[in-house]
């Protein structure tokens, strides 16, 4: 490498600007790839962008902490974005009020299914116990999931990774399952996606419709709140 370019690289790699810009570029490229692939959920723009960036960091031997110094400006917006979910919830308040009890009961049923199926599958497949405890909060939004994992004796960092992968899996599996079960109601689809795939599912639902996004956001919030109390309780029966 000519010396000038090397010096430029050293400068750029240390500045938050490079990784901030790369995150945006990777996302644009991922959106373009996804459109070219006919919107296939397997090539979900978030997954493609993550894969591109992970590849770049491995190739250039950049630590995640260095990358995050630039990317944190995007990451920070997650907080106000979660707060702003109150707006679509307000818009659909009549419908939520009308269906409140079925929604809450479906939420409890979904959480119990997620937890018990995880326990049974991991035990059946012979997984390790601390893997199990990190997998249990997989459908819960990241910050709550990390707290739950810590409380029941799993690894919070692994739990955070598992939550992201679960979100991606939910985005891929959701649409074909709704098609198979002939579920056309965007509110029902959104609620299931928010419950099983938290913010990832919610993000995907907003590209479907505002109604789907509102119910996904509702499910994500309620699942997080209920799980914080329900999961440690359920796990006592399986200890």
């Amino acid at each position, binding site marked *: 490498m000519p010396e000038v370019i090397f010096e430029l690289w050293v400068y750029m790699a240390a500045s938050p600007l490079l990784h901030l810009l790369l*995150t*945006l570029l990777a*996302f644009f490229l991922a959106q373009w790839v996804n459109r070219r692939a006919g919107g296939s959920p397997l090539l979900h723009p*978030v997954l493609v962008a*993550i894969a591109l*960036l*992970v590849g770049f960091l*491995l190739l250039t031997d950049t630590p*995640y902490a260095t*990358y*995050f110094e630039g*990317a944190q400006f995007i*990451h920070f*917006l997650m907080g*106000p974005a*979660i*707060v*702003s979910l*109150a*707006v679509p*919830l307000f818009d659909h*308040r009549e419908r939520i009020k009308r*269906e409140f*009890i079925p929604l809450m*009961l*479906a939420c409890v*049923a*979904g959480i119990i*299914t997620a937890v018990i*199926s995880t326990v049974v*599958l*991991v035990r059946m*497949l012979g*997984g*390790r116990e601390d*893997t199990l405890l990190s*997998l249990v909060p997989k459908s819960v939004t990241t910050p*709550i999931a990390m707290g*739950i994992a810590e409380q029941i004796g799993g690894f919070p960092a*692994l739990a955070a*990774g*598992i939550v*992201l992968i679960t979100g991606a*899996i*939910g985005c891929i*599996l*959701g649409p074909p399952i709704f098609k198979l079960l002939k*579920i056309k109601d965007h*509110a*029902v689809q959104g*609620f*299931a*996606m928010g*419950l099983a795939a938290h*913010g990832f599912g919610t993000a*995907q639902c907003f590209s479907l419709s505002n109604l789907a*996004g509102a119910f996904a*956001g509702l499910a994500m*919030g309620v699942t997080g709140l209920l799980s*914080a109390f329900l999961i440690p309780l359920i796990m006592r029966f399986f200890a």
Partner: protein
Amino acid sequence: MLEGFAVLLLFQLIGELITRLSGIPVPGPVLGMALLLLAVLLIKKVPAGVRTASEGLLRYLPLLFVPAGVGLINHGLLLKQDIWVISITLVVSTIFTLIVTVLVLQGLKKLWGIEKDA
């Protein structure tokens, strides 16, 4: 728009403060969302600035997951140990969870006599 963004940050801050002080196991932004919902329900409308800021942020929600997702790079070793158990469990359990949730929700809505209005 800018006022709206300030309102969102203010509610996040209030949420963070309450969770820190009370120790309830809920992230600050989630509590902030609940409080903002309560506030707009009380004044019975969403101020235009808040709506603009909210719609702007929610349009780019997928992008906001990318920085945290790249963090998977740090969990490679932990994931490798039980890779098959983890993959099979996540896929199968997610299928069950999605199916049970939609079927229970639809069943209960019929039971409650709520018509579909898709």
